[in-house]
């Protein structure tokens, strides 16, 4: 899975948890919270969906890594790679 694929994974999750949001113009480098109406419960939803759908664990100390699509891709890439190699 490429980093672009990972961004799409995160966007698909956001589409589920924030269905009223227009995601067509989300910028990868800008904090998601600055572009979309997302609160702390929504970020917990992202963590839960990564766990449920992809078996990826995000420890609480790393939640900050989910700030933007770019930081998500950087942070999650090795985790998806580790999953893929199993």
């Amino acid at each position: 899975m490429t980093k672009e694929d990972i961004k799409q994974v995160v966007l698909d999750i956001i589409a589920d948890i924030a269905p009223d949001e227009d995601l067509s113009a989300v910028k990868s480098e800008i904090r998601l919270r600055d572009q979309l109406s997302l609160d702390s419960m929504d970020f917990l939803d992202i963590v839960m969906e990564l766990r449920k759908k992809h078996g990826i664990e995000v420890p609480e100390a790393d939640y900050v890594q989910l700030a933007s699509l770019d930081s998500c891709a950087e942070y999650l890439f090795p985790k998806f790679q580790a999953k893929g190699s199993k």
Partner: protein
Amino acid sequence: MSSKTRIVITGIGLTAPNGNSLPEFRGNLLAGKARIAEIDVRHMGRHPAGVCDFDATKWQKRKELRNGTRVGSISIYCAREALGDSGLVWESVDKSRVGVYLGITEHGNVETENEIHNISQFGFDTKYWTHHHNPRTVANNPAGEVTMNMGITGPHYTIGAACAAGNAGLIQAAQMLQLGEVDLAFAGGVSESIHTFGIFAGFKNQGALGAHEDPTKASRPFDKNRNGIVISEGGAIYVLERLEDAQKRGARIIAEIAGWCINSDATDAVLPNPERQAECVRLALKRAGMRPQDIHIVSTHATATALGDIQECTALREVFTDCPGTYINNTKSFIGHCMGAAGALELAGNLPSFEDGWVHPTINIDELDPECALPGLVINQAVQAPRLEAILNNSFGMLGINSALIVKKYGVA
């Protein structure tokens, strides 16, 4: 009533299995149209149930729907529709002086069952348990969702009162208005019960779950062959105000709250007590300054259980002797038992009688149980009545809670 402050109804919003507005609901009650479906109940197969089909996205964003509860959504729909019906200019209402008081039979079972089912897919590992569980299951959830949706900053809470909850919500609101705690109240009852298998299983194992090959005939209070309760969802929320406030803004006054009583059997968790029920009705009449003859419609609680219907008839027979102008009906025969919403919906369905002069019937009586043969029982066909100025709304519930609410036509002495 100890207080002289008069409380009036100035708006109604509802969703019932056979109607998403009062005119639609009333039309179906007068036409004898039940609406009960058969649904898949988790672990239990198909059972009759009353399902509401209101447009939830009319007043909620999709994210609100995803994060909230079904009963929260029902509550928001009903409260918003009641507001529209009231003619209030919402922008000019002081939201800190508005209260939300909603009766519930139970709350949290739906979400808890859903989460147990959810984690069962993950070997019961609780790390998959949703963080939304607590805000969804706190007992004030339905009322709280209304305040968040409508920007209400006055008090909100639910009143847990088993199946007497619809009346209890209205009574609580009337009391808070009389006390001056709020200037405007959204009050009534709500239920999402069809989404929990536990209530179906509980009634089934109690021998009290209704069934019929035609689901619209499964709820049959007073019929000799009745076999139990049809579980339904729904809601009815009223706008209540002090009379002088309603008059000041030129509101359309739908009806006046005349009196009420809530008491307790203190005898059995599930079996009703007709002596206490009769006491409850008599005390409500006394507080309203009325005689039994002054009541023109008795909206019964009867749920179509073998014993419960007879017990209520025993209580009514004792109070309503020599009352030729009193008609008796039942709404559950159309929509099943809407639990926390039952009392509030059943009152709403009868209120238009003050204007249209009709009493809606009790349907699904093919063979009247002689023990339920009350004088004045309106069977299968609506009737016109010469005088319809007061309604007694009965709602009783488990653990022996009884409620009687009397509502009268505005302007009648």
